[in-house]
């Protein structure tokens, strides 16, 4: 099963996604697939905060900044992939990424590979498209990429929700179903 969890900055989507994954994966090994490249104090703070959130829940952390399709995820695991906004930015702008033309496929094909291998996949993504339209071209290209990837990932997901102040609004499926 695949669940797409979206939301704005600091909406509570990470904490919600972690709880949801834990509730649905009592027997599976839990993998946290981290996409943020560490660099600078702010990233370090964010990583520390997310590590503390996950402490005691038995997650093993794997890092994947680009090339999601080759992530070494154990079979039948429960994977929390966080997050698509970072992954898209890495694929688009990082020298190791696949560049503006290949970024969307790199992310979506990577998710398809994960779906083949794991039992449960919870994907955290970002909704950043409701804050205006008057951006310079690089920002617009990124917004278009993330918008396209979000639509394609939603089409691959059994459930899709948006988290608002820690509460989930479902666009497909519902929280309670097992």
């Amino acid at each position, binding site marked *: 099963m695949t669940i797409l969890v979206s939301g704005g900055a600091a909406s509570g989507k990470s904490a919600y996604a972690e709880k949801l994954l834990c509730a649905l994966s009592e027997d599976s090994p839990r993998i946290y697939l981290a996409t943020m490249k560490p660099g600078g104090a702010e990233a370090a703070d964010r990583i520390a905060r997310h590590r503390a959130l996950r402490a005691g829940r038995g997650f093993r952390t794997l890092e994947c900044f680009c090339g999601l399709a080759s992530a070494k995820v154990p079979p039948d695991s429960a994977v929390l992939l966080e997050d698509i906004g970072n992954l898209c930015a890495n694929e688009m702008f990082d020298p190791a990424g696949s560049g503006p033309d290949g970024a969307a496929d790199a992310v979506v094909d990577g998710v398809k590979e994960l779906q083949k291998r794991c039992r449960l996949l919870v994907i955290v993504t970002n909704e950043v498209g409701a804050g205006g339209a*008057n951006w310079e071209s690089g920002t617009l290209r990124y917004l278009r990429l993330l918008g396209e990837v979000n639509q394609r*990932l939603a089409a691959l997901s059994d459930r899709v929700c948006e988290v608002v102040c820690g509460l989930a609004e479902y*666009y497909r499926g519902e929280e309670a179903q097992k």
Partner: protein
Amino acid sequence: MILITGPLYSGKRHVAMQLLRCREEELEARCACDVHALAAECEDLEALADELAQFDAVTIAELGSGIIPLDPAERAARERAGRLACLLAERADTVVRVFCGIPKLLKGDTR
């Protein structure tokens, strides 16, 4: 008229084609797309909304969930776009919000 709103690049045009059961080539004649851009220069939003309500469908992006723009013209444009969306929603039989390509009904029905 069906009003279709949602964030930028959330799949509004695609949903418009689904709801109108039409192809990309036919869309332009039946659906006014991205009308938030029209609001920026508009003096009479009510008249614009009346005019747009003649289409079978209208798409408009949600623009108001970010920081208030520093530039006065951008601030005014964002304000007008939001007001236009409200005026269109009043005139619409059906209002749909699209999120990650998935439509959610806010008003009326999509039959």
